[in-house]
């Protein structure tokens, strides 16, 4: 792809308003809960009240004629939702493994009656000792939930000679870091509508990945995938929460629709949704890093454990990202890495913006913050000494050939905030009353697209059609969910063909009408699918005999095509030949390319109460090319704020398998009044294979916020912290149980 000449671009790089905005602002957009059909029934789920138990019997009350109840026995095919493994049942049959696990379903015309009937369903259980948390899972003194050892997946590798490097390095920094659950609190709760369709079933709902649903529920429904037609309804910001879970819910409504022969809709209320849908994986990371006399990193030893909950879902790929992010943005000669995702009797954890990277970056960046303190150097300088630069190799040996903007990002936030000066000034504070200020820094990356062989396996396909009367029609399976996909990809198409934006269209994702361009996850849509669309557009030009750079596409097409004639082009994503990943040895090119970021968080800590106020957040992200800068700023602001919530206040804990904060009264996310001034800085180092140089931006704004935040609190208080969310309660506990003050 030729390097785009900035001045010649008409649509790309322009802050064009989102094409879906007006419908949403005016309330015209139809979310799944707005849809009804004649004769439609409601569905309701009967869930486990036990953390881990054998199901002895399930007894329905006498059901009215218009109510249908189903259990696992009614599943026509195999009782699992297909993803990487087959361990997640569509409905629990012999055992339940978490509180909230679905056991039976009801469908009927009146929701209130369904709820009353659901209360009367009698389930007899026999308790099994449950595994509460990741530590217990590793101990292995209770019957395993998964396989022989409770480990869903593990990765491990040794590079160089870490043992020797640790033994001979003058400085070793170690710590054990913990991160908690996070709830997506997506815009609308999970919801799905299904009805018998042709000789199969059609599903409409809130989702990120229509083809995952089709593939996921074909085995239990015992239908060929093509007979399951899946269509996305308008979906709000989902943050990963609608990557894998919707397959389970879609399976439930489809089962009820096929059983009753009628449309069935199921919408969770917020309480049910928080109780039983996926969360961000809690983690524990034991971390050691060593430095030589020149403060260069010499060795890394890291042991990451993620709590995957009761079923494997996406844990193995989340774990891969954790493992790949664990070394951070630094050069290493010696590494000893172990990463495991383990089973517990808790709600399954799954995809969430950042996908395993935030946990890993919290650990490595906190290590760097702590190391800077102990080495008496500022955190910026320490990072500069060790930073990956163009031409360097990553931990897995991937040579970074182009588009490596981490140093630029780091310099940008540090200069903008006067970081070094403030850092040393704040270190001198010794007041015991009033407020203290703090400033914290983190640097990070996010691999764009699927990890490792993922893109090779999915083989994303995009098709475009051009009709002189209509313009460009883009057919892809990717979804708009408030992130701006529909706007950005139309910008790419309009630019490539030099046609007005209004003459570009995207078909609403429906598995019967679009090819499988892959799920809308992994910061891949703009870079991978946008790239395919760009290529398809060049193919169209070629078909009518135009050069790639030629401008007057519409004019030439009007001459060469009849008004009702159309041309089309299809492209399949191919991993570039020089991108080689060895999954077994964990060596090679883990991602085609990376986006890079750095963030500075500034805080004030009130000594009276340990309440922390974020006064300013400065975030620089190097993303290749901002196809639509205002949408990029939106991603940076939203991701940063979500990251602050994760770091500081989003507290979700489980007690004996029961989540304690299951309403939005108790599970709090930041409001606009908790939002600091956020200054986004967009940096562009074009990626030669991205459309107009673009990489990904959907997740990276979240990834490094937590360590920058905690680093700022540490700078203010002169104490090290190891756990998020870092609530005032935890600050209090730490300061009042450990008396040693390091300042």
């Amino acid at each position, binding site marked *: 792809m030729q390097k785009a000449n900035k001045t010649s671009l008409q649509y790309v790089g322009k802050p064009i308003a989102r094409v879906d905005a007006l419908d949403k602002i005016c309330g015209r957009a139809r979310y799944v809960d707005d849809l009804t059909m004649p004769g439609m029934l409601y569905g309701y789920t009967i869930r486990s009240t036990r953390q881990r138990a054998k199901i002895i019997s399930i007894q329905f009350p006498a059901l009215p004629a218009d109510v249908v109840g189903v259990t696992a026995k009614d599943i026509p095919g195999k009782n699992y939702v297909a993803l990487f493994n087959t361990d997640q049942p569509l409905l629990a049959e012999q055992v339940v493994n978490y509180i909230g696990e679905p056991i039976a379903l009801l469908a009927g015309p009146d929701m209130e009656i369904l709820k009353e009937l659901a209360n009367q369903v009698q389930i007899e259980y026999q308790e099994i000792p449950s595994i509460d948390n990741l530590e217990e899972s590793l101990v292995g003194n209770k019957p395993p939930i998964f396989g022989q050892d409770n480990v869903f997946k593990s990765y491990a590798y040794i590079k160089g000679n870490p043992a020797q490097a640790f033994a001979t390095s003058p400085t070793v920094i170690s710590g054990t870091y913990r991160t908690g659950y996070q709830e997506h609190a997506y815009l609308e709760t999970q919801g799905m509508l299904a009805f018998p369709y042709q000789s199969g079933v059609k599903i409409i709902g809130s989702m990120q990945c229509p083809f995952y649903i089709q593939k996921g529920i074909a085995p239990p429904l015992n239908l060929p995938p093509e007979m399951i037609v899946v269509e996305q309804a308008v979906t709000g910001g989902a943050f990963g929460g609608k990557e894998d879970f919707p397959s389970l819910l879609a399976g439930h409504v489809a089962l009820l629709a096929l059983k009753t022969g009628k449309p069935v809709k199921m919408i969770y209320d917020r309480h049910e949704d928080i109780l039983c849908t996926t969360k961000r994986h809690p983690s524990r990371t034991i971390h050691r890093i060593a430095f030589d006399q020149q403060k260069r990193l010499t060795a890394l030893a890291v042991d990451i454990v993620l709590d995957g909950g009761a079923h494997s879902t996406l844990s193995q790929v989340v774990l891969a990202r954790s493992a790949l992010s664990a070394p951070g943005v630094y050069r290493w000669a010696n590494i000893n890495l172990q990463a495991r995702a383990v089973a517990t009797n808790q709600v399954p954890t799954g995809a969430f913006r950042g996908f395993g990277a935030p946990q890993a970056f919290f650990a490595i960046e906190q290590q760097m913050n702590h190391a800077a303190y102990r080495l008496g150097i500022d955190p910026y300088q320490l990072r500069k000494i060790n930073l990956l630069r163009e031409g360097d190799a990553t931990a897995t040996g991937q040579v970074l050939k182009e588009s490596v903007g981490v140093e630029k990002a780091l310099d940008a936030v540090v200069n903008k905030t006067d970081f070094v000066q403030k850092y040393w000034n704040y270190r001198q504070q010794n007041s015991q009353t009033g407020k203290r200020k703090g400033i914290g820094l983190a640097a990070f990356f996010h691999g764009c697209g699927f990890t490792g062989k993922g893109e090779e396996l999915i083989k994303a396909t995009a098709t475009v059609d051009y009709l002189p009367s209509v313009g460009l029609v883009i057919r892809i399976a990717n979804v708009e969910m408030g992130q701006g996909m529909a706007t950005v990809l139309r910008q790419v198409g309009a630019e490539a063909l030099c046609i007005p934006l209004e003459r570009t269209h995207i078909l609403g994702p429906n598995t019967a009408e679009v090819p499988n361009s892959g799920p809308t996850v992994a910061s891949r849509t703009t870079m991978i699918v946008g790239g395919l669309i760009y290529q398809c557009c060049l193919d169209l030009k070629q078909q009518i005999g135009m050069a790639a750079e030629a401008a007057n596409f519409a004019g030439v097409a009007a001459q060469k095509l009849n008004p009702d004639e159309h041309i089309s082009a299809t492209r399949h994503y191919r991993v570039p030949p020089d991108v080689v990943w060895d999954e077994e040895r964990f060596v090679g090119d883990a991602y085609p390319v990376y986006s890079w970021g750095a963030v500075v968080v500034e805080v004030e800590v009130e000594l009276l*109460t340990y309440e922390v106020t974020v006064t300013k957040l400065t975030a620089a992200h190097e993303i290749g090319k901002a196809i639509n800068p205002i949408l990029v700023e939106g991603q940076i602001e939203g991701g940063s704020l979500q990251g602050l919530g994760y770091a500081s206040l989003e*507290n979700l804990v489980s007690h004996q398998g029961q989540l304690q904060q299951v309403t939005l*009264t108790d599970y709090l996310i*930041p409001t606009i*009044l*908790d939002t600091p001034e956020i200054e986004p800085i967009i940096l562009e180092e074009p990626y030669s294979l991205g459309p107009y140089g673009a990489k990904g931006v959907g997740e990276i704004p979240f990834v490094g916020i937590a360590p920058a935040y905690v680093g700022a609190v540490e700078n203010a208080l002169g104490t090290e912290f190891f756990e998020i969310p870092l609530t005032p*309660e935890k600050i209090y506990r730490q300061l009042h149980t450990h008396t040693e003050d390091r300042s």
Partner: protein
Amino acid sequence: MWYEKIPFYAPSNLSEALALCQELPDSALLAGGTDLLVQLRDPNDKVKALINIAGLPELQTIERLGNTVRLGAGVTFSRFLQQGADFFPPLTEAVRQLASPSIRNKATFGGNIVNASPAADTLPPLYAADAVVILQSIHGKRRVGLADFILGPKRSALQTGEILIQIEWHVPENYIYYYRKIGTRRALALSKVSFCGLYLPEDKTIRLAYGAVGPTVMRALAAEARFSKGDKESLLAEVTEMVQPINDQRSTADYRRFLCRQLTSEFLTRIS
């Protein structure tokens, strides 16, 4: 929707409302509904009818005569902020930090008091002011001290057939106050701890009220009595002994106890 199935009465004045109250024993009074509608979703709730008292003219008093403030139970927080913000600044601060603009547009003082949550934010300033509530039924009126009216979480001395019509208190002369609400975030957060301290320079006494650290909002009467002795440490010890915070989904008992001490200490520093 589920609430449409509950019979709904809309009296146009207080006497109609009092009559309905008497006739319909399993009914609930609906003011702003910001507590009630949440609670009614619980399938075990046995409310058989709703009597709407939102906007009843007799419950809209908002006045200050000399040092006496009278607030109708039906006054919404938004209206109070518009028309009564200068009556009693500690209460104004509490109301400003309560919930969000949309909730404040509906929620009333009467609902906040009768709902009797230990975390109800209007209560610490009203406890510190020694407020009195005025209750009315078809049989007449009675006055009860606020601290006697509230019996425990979600329990008050309101009797069947009674409506809380007014809250009344005397604003002391030249007082100094310190009010703090500690919540998880800056809006729409229930209190982990709330505190109101008043210093009355005329008689050199203090009043200390704490929210969310016991079954009801608490006045630290024993600690208040120690104030004249001038021993700050023993006063603070008295406070931390008295409060009964718990570990729950919002905070921890030890942090809450710490906050009670810290906020009291800050108040004492400010008045010394």
